[in-house]
């Protein structure tokens, strides 16, 4: 903290609170001095500050002290009056305007950084003109009647020696009519110190006359009071002063002209004169006056008696009206005298005396309710406390008191309050109480905007100087101040304050604040004509989605207006409108991998890689794969870059978002690219600055440096973004030459007036196609760098009319069309499909001979082509001869079958090699992807149960058009006509249908090898349902049904392929015309359902049958009837079976559940032999029917021959076994009274055993005639 005396307030007080000397002079004197370009007062002014006057002073006490510093203020008598408020105002305004013009040049530069501001020391922050302004402001209040320090202490009367009758002139000068009103209306004592000065102009006056006048003067006014000043000693008037003393006082005229007629001697004379005047006359005079007054006041006012008397007397004066207005205190009143005493003492630096006088008088004023005087005294008390470095609290209290008192006076006191506030603020600043100082500045803002602006700005600088700096407040007050400046058209100042405020707000996230500041400063820059800076600032408010629509419109309108005024197309890096979503950036390019469609390009690379693994050649065995091969072929330098082919476009997907509520049209969106020749000089691209503004420079990028003209073509996109809309835009660049292509950024035009540029650098790029595999090497910028190689043939492929939705089992005929647009041929086509279960390739190129689906019917002779090797790997190699070139297209048949319901992505990849192209790229692949949605349709289930009574016949249930068994082994026949099962001929949704069929093993017993015997077609296929009679059956042996079946087999039956006793079914159905709109749109032709590896559901390894006559006529009277039977037993298992046949003649008496009933004899029930046997799956059920209630004790027949036999049966073989029964009477006999005990010994497994009950077998024996 500085000493109060040396603080700025201290200095200010020395200047402002100092004795005033009234100057009265004749016109001739003025004329003399005007030769130097200066008036009399101006000439003398520089010599009125005495820094070391060293005059001993004794005031009230006995102690002598020495005055070191002293100042005199010189004023013409005509100036000693209260200044006109309006004039003063204009002068202040002028000061500000001038300062604003001076600052104008700085405005172009960037706003200062906050750190710079903080590192500056206090005095550097605020502009220097503030001091000047404050001084001027205080000066507007000088010579008020309630204060005494502005009252002239002395009067300097100046007469030129050239004047006629100088003595009478001296007298005339001090004529009461010309004296200032202060002296005339009694506010101050007209008896003041007078000093007489005779000016002698060396240029045109004679010395004789001067000396004569001087002696005359001396005799008239006294020796001491008269002085002679000789000036203008230089005849030529061309004296140059090294350090011109007037320069700092009068800056308007060129400084070197000032005082041109004054020699050094003249200056010394002036100096001496003033020093003598001050030390010999003024100070002693004041000293004496102080003593005088002090004595007087001590007598009247000091002491207890006087105090009481005073109080008593004052009380009586309570009702004096309107004490503030009139000058109730004349110079002769005690109060005024005390005030004068205080002020004189203050000016003589005797602060103790000053304080005591002020204290004395302040109570009086308070009692008198003379508020203005009271406030003035309080103010002086505060200053006296401060400058004498006494109690801080007291000082502040006094200032506060004075300030609020002034404020209470209303408008009239405001000026005084302002001065008081300024002093108070200075006082606080001197004590480092900046925060308080700021609040004081804030309080003296007042209503006048210009004044308020200056005060607010000063307040803001105080906030920076507080420890710690209050930057938020700083910014806020700057903004307030700027608004005020703007209100009174001080745009330069407004910009200056806002510019400083930006340093606070530039990183803020308080959006409204930021927008306000940038928008307004932009507007103002536009007003002063700095359109480019205006645009730069306005850019920051464009991303204002949170503002209301009206505000956004204002922002945009103003912005575009300003842009238009600049008259050129600005290019802005980092334009916020529209916002680019960098994470959406996707680069799609094709090197050896080409894509048929957009969607296929977006498929994860790993899917394609796994699909392509076995069709892409790998030259190096072992670890190296085709990727490494590819990179080996490339020059090492370019290995990092991606490869693209000349003439083929690189696509970039980028998402633009409009942050505003207003729709915006964006035109000419294109990429910024660089294509350098494929030479070694990979030039380093210049780093674009973060926010550069200027004429179009990005178009420079869009040139091939080698050729000078555009060696690539760019796509341009125009679109309109509605409020808040997002759009994914596809941009393309197509290089036409070899070289290195670099995608640098994107540019767009906004409303035809401004060009936005966005550089991709230092942004993570999601380069889709090479993600993952080169991760370790690739930096994001490299992902946008492409090695352009010579143009290559590119295969295009599509599958026509591939349905998006279809039903499970739907079978379609499609055509794959491949085209090669270029002239050079391609060969070695190979294709792989991700889901061979769904898609099958046809066999030849030519079109189908007949319309689908007739071609699938039997009768069309087609060669059965086997693709065993291809099928397994699901790679289809096109015939060697197939080669494509020159816009020729290849049409290849394709079968699609929706195998399972669900959503499916089918991936096709076609590999091809280039002929005659010497390039680093030997082959390419075409990738196609299609999405299928498969809806569930018919659900089929098959169940096969062995026929109990017949060998190798099974019945099962299913559900429509044709049912076929696959292969030649199984014959199939219908058990029931379809019409009886399903009269409506179609299955409705949700309906279930069971049908029963009989299938028969057509293979000859005992032979294991496949026989190529051809069964009649009717045996493997069953037509369930005919619309017209001549409709043919579907051919299941030929492609594509056969091949689909093949893949179905492998899919369905991976688990148990060992069981040879399985049967595969294909159910072919047709979709009835339905009116359901949600169904698959194009009617599918027919559906096929494959069910594979159906095996017989049976636990027993044996099947057998009894073979014998049905009806026998026998004459029982002669003998009993012996009937020979044959039992054929088949071992259906894999192991060796040993079977023992046990015949049971008599029943055990006990009616246990285990033994089979053999009692069903006699004429009880004769089933109709012709009746179709209908058996459910539970074949045993009918046999375990309840025994008849009446039982006969003796069996009607007995088993003759062996009662127990054991046979060995080889696996999957059949044995005959003879049996014989003896019947004693005619009747129908059920020969079920036997059982088979079997024991199975398989190769490894433990042997199993079991018992089978006999089947009912009815034999009718009749009495022969």
């Amino acid at each position, binding site marked *: 903290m500085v000493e109060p005396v040396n603080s700025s307030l201290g200095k200010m007080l020395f200047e402002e609170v100092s004795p005033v000397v009234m100057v009265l002079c004749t016109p001739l004197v003025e004329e003399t001095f005007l030769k130097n370009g200066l008036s009399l007062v101006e000439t003398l002014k520089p010599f009125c500050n005495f820094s070391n006057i060293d005059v001993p002073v004794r005031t009230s006490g006995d102690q002598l002290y020495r005055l070191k510093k002293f100042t005199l203020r010189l004023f013409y008598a005509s100036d000693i009056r209260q200044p006109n408020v309006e004039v003063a105002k204009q002068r202040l305004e002028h000061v500000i305007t001038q300062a604003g013009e001076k600052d104008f040049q700085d405005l172009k530069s960037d706003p200062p950084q906050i750190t710079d501001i903080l590192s500056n020391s206090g005095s550097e922050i605020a502009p220097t003109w503030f001091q000047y302004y404050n001084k001027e402001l205080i000066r507007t209040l000088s010579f008020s009647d309630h204060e005494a320090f502005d009252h002239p202490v002395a009067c300097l009367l100046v007469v030129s020696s050239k004047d006629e009758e100088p003595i009478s002139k001296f007298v005339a000068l001090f004529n009461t009519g010309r004296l200032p009103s202060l002296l005339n209306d009694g506010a101050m004592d007209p008896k003041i110190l007078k000093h007489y000065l005779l000016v002698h102009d060396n240029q045109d006056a004679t010395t004789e006359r001067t000396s004569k006048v001087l002696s005359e003067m001396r005799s008239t006014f006294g020796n001491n009071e008269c002085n002679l000043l000789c000036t203008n000693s230089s005849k030529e008037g061309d004296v140059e002063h090294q350090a011109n003393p007037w320069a700092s006082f009068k800056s308007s005229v060129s400084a070197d002209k000032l005082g041109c007629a004054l020699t050094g001697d003249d200056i010394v004379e002036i100096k001496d004169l003033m020093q003598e005047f001050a030390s010999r006359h003024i100070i002693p005079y004041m000293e004496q006056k102080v003593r005088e007054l002090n004595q007087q006041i001590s007598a009247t006012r000091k002491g207890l008696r006087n105090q009481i008397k005073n109080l008593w007397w004052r009380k009586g004066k309570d009702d004096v009206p309107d004490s503030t207005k009139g000058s109730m205190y004349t110079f002769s009143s005690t109060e005024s005298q005390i005030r004068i005493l205080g002020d004189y003492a203050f000016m003589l630096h005797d602060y103790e005396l000053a304080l005591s006088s002020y204290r004395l008088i302040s109570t009086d004023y308070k009692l008198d309710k003379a508020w203005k005087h009271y406030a003035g005294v309080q103010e002086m008390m505060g200053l006296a406390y401060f400058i004498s470095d006494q109690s801080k609290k007291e000082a502040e209290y006094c200032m506060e008191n004075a300030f609020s008192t002034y404020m209470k006076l209303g408008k009239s006191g405001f000026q005084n309050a302002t001065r008081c506030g300024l002093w108070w603020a200075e006082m606080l600043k001197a004590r480092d109480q900046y925060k308080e100082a700021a609040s004081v500045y804030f309080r003296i803002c007042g209503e006048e905007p210009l004044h308020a602006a200056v005060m607010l700005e000063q307040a803001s600088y105080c*906030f920076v100087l507080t420890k710690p700096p*209050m*930057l*938020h*407040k700083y*910014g*806020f*007050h700057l*903004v307030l101040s700027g608004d005020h400046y703007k209100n009174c058209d001080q745009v330069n100042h407004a910009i200056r304050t806002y510019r400083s405020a930006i340093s606070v707000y530039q990183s*803020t*996230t*308080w959006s*409204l*604040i930021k*927008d*306000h500041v940038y928008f307004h400063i932009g507007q103002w820059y536009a007003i002063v004509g700095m359109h480019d800076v205006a645009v730069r600032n306005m850019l920051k408010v464009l991303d204002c989605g949170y503002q*209301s629509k*009206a*505000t956004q419109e204002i922002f945009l309108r103003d912005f575009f207006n300003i842009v238009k005024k600049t008259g050129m197309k600005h290019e802005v890096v980092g334009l916020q409108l529209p916002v680019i979503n960098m994470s959406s950036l996707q680069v799609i390019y094709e090197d050896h991998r080409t894509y048929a469609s957009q969607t296929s390009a977006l498929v994860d690379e790993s899917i394609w890689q796994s699909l392509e693994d076995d069709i892409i050649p790998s030259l190096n065995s072992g670890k190296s794969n085709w990727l490494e091969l590819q990179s080996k072929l490339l020059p090492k330098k370019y290995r990092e870059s991606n490869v693209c082919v000349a003439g083929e476009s690189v696509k970039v997907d980028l998402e633009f978002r409009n942050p505003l509520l207003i729709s915006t049209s964006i035109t000419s969106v294109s990429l910024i690219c660089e294509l350098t020749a494929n030479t070694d000089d990979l030039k380093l691209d210049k780093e674009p600055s973060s926010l550069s503004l200027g004429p179009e420079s990005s178009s420079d990028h869009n040139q091939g440096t080698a050729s000078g003209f555009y060696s690539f073509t760019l796509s341009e996109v125009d679109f309109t973004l509605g409020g808040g809309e997002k759009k994914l835009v596809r941009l393309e660049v197509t290089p036409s030459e070899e070289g290195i292509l670099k995608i640098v950024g994107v540019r767009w035009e906004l409303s035809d007036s401004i060009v936005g540029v966005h550089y991709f650098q230092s942004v993570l790029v999601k380069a889709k196609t090479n993600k993952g595999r080169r991760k370790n090497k690739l930096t994001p910028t490299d992902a946008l760098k492409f090695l352009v190689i010579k143009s290559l043939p590119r295969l295009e492929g599509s599958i026509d009319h591939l349905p998006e939705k279809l039903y499970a089992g739907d079978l379609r005929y499609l055509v794959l069309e491949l085209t090669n647009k270029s002239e050079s041929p391609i060969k070695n086509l190979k294709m792989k499909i991700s889901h061979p279960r769904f898609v099958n390739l046809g066999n030849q190129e030519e079109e189908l001979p007949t319309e689908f689906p007739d071609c699938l019917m039997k009768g069309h002779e087609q060669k059965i082509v086997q693709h065993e090797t291809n099928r397994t790997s699901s790679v289809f190699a096109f015939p060697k001869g197939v080669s494509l070139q020159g816009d020729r297209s290849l049409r290849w048949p394709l079968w699609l079958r929706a195998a399972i319901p669900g959503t499916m992505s089918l991936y096709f990849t076609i590999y091809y090699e280039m002929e005659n192209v010497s390039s680093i790229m030997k082959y390419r692949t075409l990738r196609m992807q299609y999405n299928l949605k498969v809806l569930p349709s018919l659900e089929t289930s098959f169940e096969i149960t062995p026929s109990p009574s017949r060998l190798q016949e099974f019945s099962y249930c299913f559900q429509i058009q044709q049912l076929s068994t696959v292969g030649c082994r199984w014959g199939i026949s219908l058990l029931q006509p379809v019409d009886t099962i399903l009269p409506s001929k179609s299955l409705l949704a949700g309906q279930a249908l069971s049908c029963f069929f009989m299938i028969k093993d057509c293979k000859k017993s005992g032979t294991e090898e496949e026989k190529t015997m051809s069964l009649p077609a009717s045996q493997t296929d069953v037509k369930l349902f005919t619309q017209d009679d001549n409709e043919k059956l579907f051919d299941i042996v030929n492609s594509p049904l056969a091949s689909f079946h093949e893949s179905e087999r492998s899919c369905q039956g991976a688990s148990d392929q060992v069981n040879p006793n399985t049967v595969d079914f294909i159910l072919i159905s047709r979709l009835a015309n339905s009116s359901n709109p949600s169904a698959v749109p194009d009617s599918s032709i027919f559906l096929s359902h494959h069910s594979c590896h159906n095996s017989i559901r049976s636990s027993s390894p044996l099947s057998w049958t009894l073979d014998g006559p049905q009806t026998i006529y026998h004459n029982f009277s002669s003998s009993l009837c012996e009937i020979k039977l044959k039992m054929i037993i088949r071992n259906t298992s894999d192991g060796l079976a040993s079977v023992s046949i046990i015949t049971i003649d008599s029943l055990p008496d006990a009616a246990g559940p285990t033994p089979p009933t053999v009692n069903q004899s006699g004429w009880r029930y004769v089933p109709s032999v012709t009746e179709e046997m209908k058996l459910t799956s539970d074949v045993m059920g009918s046999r375990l029917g309840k025994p008849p209630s009446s039982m006969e004790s003796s069996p009607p027949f007995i088993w003759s021959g062996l009662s127990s036999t054991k046979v060995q049966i080889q696996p999957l073989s059949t044995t005959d076994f003879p049996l014989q029964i003896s019947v004693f009477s005619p009747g129908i006999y059920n020969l079920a009274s036997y059982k088979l005990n079997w024991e199975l010994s398989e190769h490894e497994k433990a042997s199993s055993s079991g018992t089978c009950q006999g089947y009912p077998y009815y034999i009718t024996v009749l009495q022969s005639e």
Partner: protein
Amino acid sequence: MANTACFIIVGRNDIPIYEAEVGSAAKREDAAQLHQFILHAALDVVQDLAWTTSAMFLKSVDRFNDLVVSVYVTAGHTRLMLLHDSRNEDGIKSFFQEVHELYIKILLNPLYLPGSRITSSHFDTKVRALARKYL
């Protein structure tokens, strides 16, 4: 209910994470930014005051003309700032306390990243209801 009231939650780093004009007076365009300015400027004072007391409610810390800034500082140094022209200190205190509770609930949401903007409409409705109740 107060004529003018602007409520802002300021997270660390002086980033506003929630803003609401809760006054009953008709919304004026330029008022919104003035409110922001005043509240933003008051941050300096809050910074000083927050460490001088252990109370969370700092009462009115700053004023601009007839607008007063009241502040409530949570333990995590999130500042709930209210700009108001009414003098209902008890109401403001209750308002702050209840909003603090709401804010804690927001913080407990595992999907909310502390310091990010509060976008919950539920929170917004609740705050406005509290403002109607207390201010």
